Structure formats: C-alpha cells, structure tokens
C-alpha cells in the first residue's frame, strides 16, 4: 500500500523491465488522457537492480541467522541466548544493509521491490515444504524446525522472511531518507523543529497523560471529568458577570497524538510485564530444576560399568569451571507403604559430596540427610500407625531413605516410618526374575518446590543402593556442578574431552531438560507475538494520527516545498513525528512495565501454592528483554510512519496552495 515517492526523474538508467519511458520530448503534444504533468517522464515503478539487491538481503538475512548462530555459539563459545541474539542482530543488519544499498543505488524507497522479494520468498517456502524430503538433509536448521511439525516449519520460515523483509525495508527507507536528495544528508535540524511544532507536546500534557495511563484510566478520567466541570462552572460565572473567559481547547490532532502515545505505552507495558512474569516462571523453574538435578553429568556409553568413578571424579574436579562432582546410581522402583503404592526414581547418593552439587541437603524439611549413613539414629514414629505399617521389631536396623514431600504424602509416611522399595529386577526365581523388595525407613523428607521432584524422587546412600541393586562398586555416573550455569554446555564438553571421550560422555542440564525449556521458549515467543499485536494496533493509531496531520498540514507542506524542501526532507518531518510518538509511548510503557515488575517483585502477588507450587507471582526483570521490546516497538512505529510520510512528500505544492 505504501506508495513510491517521486524519485529521480528519468535518471534511472539501470532499471529493467517496467522502467521509465525515455524522457519525452517536451515539445510533443501531451496525450489527452494524462493529468497535469503529462509529457514528463515519470519515475520508474520498479527497479530490477534494487529488486535483486533486496532479494539478496531477504534470503541472505534468513540464511545468515542460523549460520551466525552456529558461529557465535560453537566457534566463539558464547552462551546460547547471547549467540541467538547476536545472530539475529547480524541477520537484521545484513538485510538492512542490502536494503540500504538498494535504496541508495535506485534512489527509491524500494517498497515494491521488497514486496516482490517477499512474494518470492513465500514461493520459495512453498517449494521447500512441497519438496521437503529433498531439502531436509541439507540443512540442520530446517531439520530442527521440521521436527516440530510442518505448520511450525511454514510459519517459522514465513516469519523469518517477514522479519528479514522488515529489516530490508527499514534499511532501504533510512537510506532513502539520508541520500534521497542525491547527496548524503542525514541532518534533521529543521525537520525536528517542524515536527515538534506539529505535535504540540509539552511537558505538562505528557505528565498528565502519563498519570492517566498509570492510574489505569479510570481515576484519571474522573479527574478530567471534574476538571472540565469546574471549567464549565467558571466559564458560566464569567459569562454572567460579563467578564471575558478564554477556554483552552485541545486541537484534534493533539488528542490523536496523545491517544497514539497511550496506545503504544499500553502495548509496551503489557508486553514487558507479561514477558517478565514468564521469565520469572522460567527462572523459578530453572532454579528448582538446577537445585534438584545437576548442571551436568558424566555418563558411560551403553552397558559399560562405571567402576573407576573415584579417580574419574578427581580428574573431573580438576577441570576449570567445575565446582563440584558427586557419584550417583539411578534406578526406577516402586515404593509401598501399607496400602499405598507409587512409582519413584531412586537415586543412590554420596551423602558427603552430594551437597556440593545439588541442593538436597538444604531442601531437607524434616529429619537429617546424615541419617542415611547412620540409620540407627532415625527416631521411631511417635504416633500409632494409621496407614503406615507398625515398626517392625528390628526397625532400628533398617537402612534409611529420603523421600520428597509429595511422595511422603502419597505414601502417608513420616520420618521414621517404614517404606518398602520394590525393584522389578530381582533375583532369579523358579519362574524367571522375581521382583525384589526390601524395607527402608524414612530418614528425611525434602521439599524442592518442584512438584515433579517432590513426588517422584527418593534417595538412598550410595553404598545401600549398590547393595540393593547388587551392582558392586559401580555408579551410573557423576553429577557435576559448574561455576557458570549458562556455560554448562561448554564446561561439560571440556570435561568429556579431558576424560578422553569414549567410554565417557557428558550431558548438560539444557540437554537433560530440553523439551521442557524449548516448550517454555515456544510459549514465550507465541505470547510475545500475540501481545506484539497490541503494539501493532497502536502503530495503526500512529498511522491514522499522521495521516490526519498530513491532511491538516497540506498547506504547510506545500509552502515548505515551495521553499525548496525535497521529498526526503518532507518525509523526515513526518517520520520524526511518528518516531517521537513511538518513543514517548515506548518510554512510558517501559517505565510502567519496570514499575509494575518492581512492584510485583517487592510487594508480591500471592498465588495458591497448592495449584502453582509457588507462593508469589515470580518476576524476572531482564534488561535485554526490555531493550528488545523497545526496539520492536520503535521499528513498528517507524514502519507505520512511512506511508503517511510518502503521502505528505508526494503532495504537489500547487495542490496545497490552491486549496484555500
């Protein structure tokens, strides 16, 4: 819809098909069907050169993102989030640069060229999907997308193309604004001067607007109502007494401007708050997961026994970045107590070193972890048995087990109660393997805050577990704690390298919980897109406001043009106006978002811990996230200004001067 402004008339020799007719001889009689200005060469509608450049930019940007991500993550060893961010920036810059070159070469906004390139991209996506099996082998990025389904693949590719095209458009328009006059002219001096006068924003108006948005509109609107009533009363009184009273009126465009600012502010506000809360949930989850499971693991391949774990542990601890290591034995079992039965994951842990890796010792609610090693100290249950089995005569001699709070609740056991552990892999009986069962006593109950763990995990001492499963002196692997959680991947990789590879392999927590965190990430992206629509709608407010301003200022634009203001110059005025609206709205939204987050963080919004397993609404204020929201809002606001700006710049001076 965005039209092309008049570029250089007839100076575009490099244009391909659909380019300008040759400069018509000015003596020739005009074709009667043409309007004013007929007989003069119109600028070309389409520049092939620019099209090639923006297409390169679009495809290159999309292709560059995964390549750059691999480069940043694997070559430079940056954490995943940073690598993804940098890759996105690199791809955006590439597209924008090629767009800028296209605009500079053709001296036009390149809107049609970018639209055509986007269509080409869509066709390419369709082709890729139709012939996917052929393409799949070639690209790791495609494979990972395809793993999530065709819809995700199509939407992902189209979305990437759309972002790349947006980047190209931003680059092209910025370049056109800077060099559209034929020389490099990034100055904004008088444009800003004019733009500010159009918007008529002053500090008082902005402060009132901010108050209005902060108070959630209702109290603010009430105050406005009271104020306008007071003004009416004063005006009437002045009229009765025959005095003069001047009533301040708000121009319609100022009202529109304020509404647009409020719209942008609300969008940015909602986006930052929701994303911060989601980050809070994610961080909480991550903290709990990392509290109960290790940052990484060293395992052996296949069925190989891991017997030399003591020496391996020493070698692992020597690797820089490793903060702790502890052996563990992992098995899945059934737990029973009285009539209650549940499946559980049973881990044998080394009570001396487990605290250096996971938070288990700190999560103990009742009892003591050390009682695993000294079961004789476990107190006998104080109450009569309601559900739990009565302590057997030799109960004091039974080894201890640590269970989670939810697990204890399901089994209806307390510290000191007896629990039977049943393993499906038992001794060989007459009819094949028989389940093996052995009584333990609850030595302690832990609470990690993560339902998954509290209801599924039970711990034995390593020696007791080895005895129960009859494994001899072997372990499943070593659990690791690293200094920097976000660098876990590279540290674990280095550990595996130091151990000489096979039969050892490393896994980091991201890999261990991949599906959970990628689901969270997906949810966040979807949420950002949905809430981003608020900002998008707000950008339509900006567009409408600017169109109105252009209509109101037709005469002024004509006068500026008669004084020699060029197309890019007039465009700059209106682009600046939109950017000011966007910037003020974004600033308001960021302040509000930050304020709300701090408020939620400090005051706390209580949640039902039974449902959410978390006592307060978690909030994590991530500066990068705020910056990203602000950037997105500004880009959207900027793109919204282009159409009204070209409309303003294309006005013929005579039209504005004639309409009086």
């Amino acid at each position, binding site marked *: 819809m965005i039209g092309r402004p008049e570029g250089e008339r007839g100076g575009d020799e490099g244009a391909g098909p659909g380019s300008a007719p040759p400069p018509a001889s000015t*003596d020739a009689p005009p074709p009667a069907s043409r309007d004013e200005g007929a007989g003069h060469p119109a600028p070309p509608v389409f520049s092939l050169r620019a099209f090639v450049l923006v297409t390169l930019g679009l495809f290159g940007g999309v292709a560059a993102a995964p390549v750059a991500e691999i480069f940043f993550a694997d070559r430079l060893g940056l954490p995943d989030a940073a690598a993804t961010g940098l890759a996105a920036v690199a791809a955006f810059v590439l597209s924008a640069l090629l767009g800028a070159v296209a605009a500079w070469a053709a001296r036009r906004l390149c809107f049609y060229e970018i639209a055509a390139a986007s269509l080409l991209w869509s066709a390419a996506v369709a082709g890729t999907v139709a012939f996917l099996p052929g393409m799949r082998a070639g690209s790791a990025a495609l494979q990972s997308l395809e793993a999530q389904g065709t819809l995700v693949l199509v939407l992902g590719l189209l979305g990437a193309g759309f972002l790349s095209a947006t980047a190209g458009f931003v680059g092209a328009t910025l370049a056109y604004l800077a060099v559209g006059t034929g020389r490099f002219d990034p100055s904004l001096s008088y444009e800003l001067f004019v733009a500010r*006068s159009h918007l008529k924003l002053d500090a008082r108006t902005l402060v009132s607007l901010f108050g209005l948005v902060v108070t959630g509109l209702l109290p603010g609107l009430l105050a406005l109502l009271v104020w306008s009533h007071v003004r009416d009363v004063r005006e009437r009184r002045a009229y009765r007494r025959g005095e003069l009273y001047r009533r301040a009126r708000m121009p319609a465009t100022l009202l529109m401007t304020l509404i647009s600012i409020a719209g942008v502010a609300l969008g940015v506000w909602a986006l930052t708050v929701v994303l911060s809360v989601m980050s809070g949930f994610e961080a909480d989850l991550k903290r709990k997961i990392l509290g109960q499971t290790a940052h990484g693991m060293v395992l052996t391949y296949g069925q190989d026994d891991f017997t030399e774990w003591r020496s391996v542990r020493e070698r692992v601890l020597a690797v820089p970045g490793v903060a702790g290591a502890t052996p563990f034995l992992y098995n899945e079992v059934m737990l029973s107590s009285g009539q209650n039965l549940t499946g559980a994951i049973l881990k044998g842990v080394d009570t001396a070193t487990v605290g250096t890796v996971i938070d288990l010792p700190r999560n103990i609610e009742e009892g003591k972890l050390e009682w695993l090693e000294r079961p004789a100290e476990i107190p006998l249950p104080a109450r009569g048995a309601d559900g739990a089995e009565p302590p057997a005569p030799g109960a004091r001699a039974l080894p201890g087990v640590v269970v989670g709070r939810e697990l204890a609740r399901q089994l209806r056991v307390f510290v000191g109660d007896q629990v039977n552990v049943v393993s499906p892999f038992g001794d060989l009986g007459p009819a094949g393997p028989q389940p093996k069962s052995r009584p333990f006593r609850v030595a302690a109950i832990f609470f990690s805050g993560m339902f998954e763990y509290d209801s599924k995990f039970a711990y034995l001492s390593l020696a007791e577990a080895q005895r129960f499963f009859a494994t001899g002196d072997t372990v499943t692997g070593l659990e690791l704690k690293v200094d920097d959680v976000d660098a876990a991947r590279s540290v674990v990789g280095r550990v595996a390298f130091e151990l000489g590879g096979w039969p050892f392999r490393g896994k980091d927590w991201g890999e261990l919980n991949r599906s959970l965190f990628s689901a969270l990430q997906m949810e966040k992206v979807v949420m950002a897109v949905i809430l981003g629509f608020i900002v998008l709608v707000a950008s339509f407010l900006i567009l409408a406001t600017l169109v109105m301003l252009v209509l109101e200022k037709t005469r002024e634009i004509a006068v*500026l043009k*008669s004084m020699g203001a060029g197309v890019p110059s007039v465009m700059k005025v209106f682009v600046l106006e939109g950017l000011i609206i966007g910037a003020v709205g974004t600033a308001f939204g960021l302040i509000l978002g930050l304020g709300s987050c701090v408020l939620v963080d400090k005051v706390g919004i209580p949640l039902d811990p039974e449902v959410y397993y978390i006592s307060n609404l978690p909030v994590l204020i991530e500066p990068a996230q705020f910056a990203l929201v602000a950037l997105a809002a500004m880009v959207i606001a900027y793109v919204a200004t282009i159409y009204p700006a070209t409309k303003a710049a294309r006005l013929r001076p005579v039209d504005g001067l004639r309409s009086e």
Partner: protein
Amino acid sequence: MASAPPFIRIEGLGKTYLMGDRRLEVLRGIDLEIARGEFVALTGPSGAGKSTFLHLLGTLDLPTRGRVLFDGEDVFERGEEELADFRNATVGFVFQSHHLLPEFTALENVMMPALIRRVARAEARRRAAEVLGLVGLSDRLDHRPGELSGGEQQRVALARALCLEPRLLLADEPTGNLDPATAEGIHALLGELNARLGITAVVVTHNERLAASLPRRLRLSRGRLE
C-alpha cells in the same frame, strides 16, 4: 539575439487540467523573455491563468507542454530533488495570503528557507534578522503571524522570500488582501528591493496603479499574453 541567453525564456508554455472528462486549458502557449533585473507586472482578469503561470515559472507545477529556460537551461529537465534545490536557491515566493507557518515566530519563518538549505542555525538567524530589518520589522522578530497585522505578515512573507537572496522573486497578488495605504508601502518596498538588490521580479496584481508604475506590463487573458 544577444550572445548570452536571456535570464528567463519561456517557449510555448501550456497547461491543461483534466476536470473529470472536461479539458480545461488554462495556458495556451505563452512565449516570453524576461531579462535580468526586470520588474514585470502581470495583470489580467480572474481565471486568466496568472497564478498557474506564476506557479509554472516557479516550478511548483509541471507544464503540459512548452519549456521554461533559465539561463538557457530547461528547468523541467531536472529531477524533483534538483527542482527543489532550484526553488530553494533561485526563487522566492510571496503568496496572496502570506502562507506563514502559524506555529513559528516571524524570525523562524524567515529562517526556514535557510534551514532547509542546511545553513547553520546561528547563521540562518543572523541572516533572517538582517532581512527582517530590511523590510522594517526589526522589532517584530519574536511575534507569531497571528500577532502581526496583515501588512506586517506580508512583509514577513517577503522577508522569507528574500532570505536566501533569490535571483527571481515571484509575487502572487501580494497586496490583494491589504488596504490601499499598506499596499502602497509593500509596493514601494518591492520597487526598492528590485532597484537595490537587482532581483528580477514578476508581480501578479490587480492594482492598476502599481501596474502602471512599472516599466513592463504583461496582460494575460484566456491563457494568452495580450
């Protein structure tokens, strides 16, 4: 013909508007030469095409046919941006209803053409103040157009047109909305500027006295020069 081309040479200039299905021929082929430093009065009845002619001369509009040559060069051969530069550097406009920007002070209005040319703010301010002094408004620099009288507004508009020392001044009924005494003052000012600065001026006017006092009078009627 003299060896040097005339300042302005107009050849077969025509302008036709399309109003719905109806063709409206406003200018029907005008040939004219204007020498450097001339002060030309353009008169004619309403609807004769005076304003259109002036707009074409100032490149605010494109002709349907014909050429306008400045110093022997066809201006309409240029691209839009070059035309904007041309207007900025060469032409000064004074409109009937002053067309000052209401949100800006007199000084800022006069500065505007210089700012468009990217003259530094301080330099633009100095120059604007000087030109405002020239039209006798040194004491009205910080007034907005709404706070000025009609004559003062038109003098500010004149100052704005002169700010970048254009070679051609185009005035479209500059005194059409003014009382005779004020109009007289503006006319005297125009004459003085023409004489002192050597600016070529084309003034559209209904004022017979002004027209009579000028050395060269042109009369447009039904799109043709008489």
